[in-house]
């Protein structure tokens, strides 16, 4: 993809209670991925402007007074909603201003020329649209660009679980400006999913190497754990167990990995459990430096499977060792 994409991260807007130091650390990491700017509240701008480049910050304002205060702080970019814009902010001279129109108003602006005229000369962001895939989304995007211009940005709602896909298709339909947030917080497109999709499908060069740090800082800021199998950001997404997949990965990870684990700061991890086959078991035994006669492998494999079903989970390394020792030394099953 040759176009530059202007990505706005809106995570900070959902982190009102975050500590200043933590928020600085988080946004510094997020901006390091190649995301263009972070959108913040005026009170956050106060401490962020001295720690991060103000060029990489956009501030959400709702009154002329807020806008004026942020302008005095040196804010470079502003975002507001349509109502606030028409209630006074339109009278201010703000060089870089985006006006956000919510989902239920987009249709009004698309069909009412008088309303459309009121916001003709500003950059527009359409926000809160949950569903683009029910109808002809390419036609809808085309009409939006035609009415509001190519600089229109979008902040899709994830209420119907399609926001990341909508954001991706928006870019593919010609959109250059898009909003997202880490893990999709605030019910919107998920930033790390969008960046990974652009990297995998369009071979862009966003850097997700610091995904573990971003995740860790986010978890500290929010006191909430990111799910272990969350796309792109999850700790365990490259853990593999099933025999068929393990076989394919051992031969060449390209068989089953959409992107390299290292590209998101992760690593591939072999898990031994119910679905493990002989080959995976051999690899694990080699990792554990256990020399096992191949006569015993089938029995060990059977014991591993029975243990996993009995305990309803994967096996830890010490449990695998114990099974091996029992099978080899006693010729019997490990009771565990």
């Amino acid at each position, binding site marked *: 993809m040759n176009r530059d994409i202007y990505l706005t991260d809106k995570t900070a807007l959902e982190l009102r209670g975050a500590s200043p130091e933590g928020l600085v650390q988080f946004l510094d990491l997020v901006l390091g991925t190649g995301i263009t700017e972070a959108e913040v509240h005026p009170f956050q701008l106060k401490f962020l402007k001295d720690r991060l480049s103000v060029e990489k910050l956009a501030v959400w304002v709702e009154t002329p007074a807020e806008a004026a205060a942020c302008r005095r702080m040196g804010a470079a970019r502003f975002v507001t909603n349509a109502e606030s814009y028409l209630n006074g902010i339109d009278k201010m001279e703000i060089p870089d201003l985006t006006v956000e129109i919510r989902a239920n108003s987009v249709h009004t602006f698309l069909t009412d020329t008088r309303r459309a005229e009121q916001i003709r000369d500003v950059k527009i962001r359409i926000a809160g649209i949950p569903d683009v895939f029910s109808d002809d989304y390419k036609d809808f995007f085309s009409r939006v660009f035609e009415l509001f211009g190519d600089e229109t940005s979008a902040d899709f709602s994830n209420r119907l679980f*399609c926001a990341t896909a909508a954001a991706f298709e928006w870019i593919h339909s010609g959109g250059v400006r898009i909003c997202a947030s880490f893990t999709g917080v605030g019910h919107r497109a998920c930033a790390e999913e969008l960046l990974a999709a652009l990297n995998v499908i369009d071979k862009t060069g966003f850097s997700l190497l610091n995904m573990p740090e971003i995740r860790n800082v986010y978890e500290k800021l929010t006191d909430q754990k990111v799910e272990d199998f969350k796309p*792109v950001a999850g700790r365990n997404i490259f853990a593999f*167990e099933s025999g068929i997949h393990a076989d394919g990965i051992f031969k060449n990870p390209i068989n089953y*990995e959409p992107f390299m684990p290292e590209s998101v700061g992760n690593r591939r991890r072999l898990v031994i459990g119910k679905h493990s086959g002989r080959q995976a078991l051999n690899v694990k035994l080699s990792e554990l430096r256990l020399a096992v006669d191949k006569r015993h492998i089938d029995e060990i494999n059977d014991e591993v499977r029975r243990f996993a079903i009995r305990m309803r989970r994967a096996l830890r390394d010490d449990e695998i060792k114990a099974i091996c020792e029992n099978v080899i030394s006693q010729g019997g099953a490990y009771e565990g």
Partner: protein
Amino acid sequence: MKDKRLIKIVDTTLRDGEQRAGLAFSGSEKLACAMVMDRMGIYQIEAGIPAMCREEKDAIYEIMGHRKNAKISTWNRMIESDIESSLDICPDIIHIGVPVSDIQIKEKLHKTRDYVEEQMKKCILKALSGGSEVTLGFEDSSRADMAFMQQLAHQAASLGIKRIRYADTLGICSPSKIGADISELVRTDLEIECHTHDDLGMAVANSIVAAKNGAEFIDTTFLGIGERAGNCNFIKFITGAKDLFEFGIMSDFINLAEIDNEICGILGIGRKKSDLYERGADCAENRGYL
């Protein structure tokens, strides 16, 4: 109001879902789970892989003995011995996974397209010999050559296959890509099933667009569990697509969140309990499902 088209749900919680690293369902858990799915009207339950082990085969057989409505299918590699394991238990549907991308044919099978075509035919004929319906799964469809897939589809149709599964095995599809691919495959006149993975967070949208472009069957799992970041989440798909399609799910089970909780309780999985070496205390026995 225009009638909504029926989309048949193929649940693969007990097969692809269980392949999430660290999960191990007992036969009794699988049975309890399948009964919930059967009662709620899920069209097809992909119950497991008989070739994996005796316990798995027994569990699937048990499910077949208790279900009332759902079709029970088994998943098989494109290997005669796998098919034989399925034939032993005579499921309603024998599903055969056929790697179709040049990457997997070369790197996983170490074979050629010709081999895949011949082996596919052998396995289809063997599977049909038992009287079960046979469906094919085109593994890694999203990286496969469409002309090759269509060629295989025509071959399969000539042998009596009526349905093929487009599998975005690596979860790398976008809605526009999958919409275009499904539209092409629909031209083979076979029924098209769509199986998506969520590696890029687009599984639900991809499944919706696939259905809009002619897929009649959509694969889902409860809680979206599956390999890596998982599969298309059943609840999310139903929620996202409910204004577009009917799913044949009984109205008694309209409270999808309750059903989701019930399944998760049976299987001992939850949104927070995802550590590989722990299982939720709420496994089937503890919840009194058995």
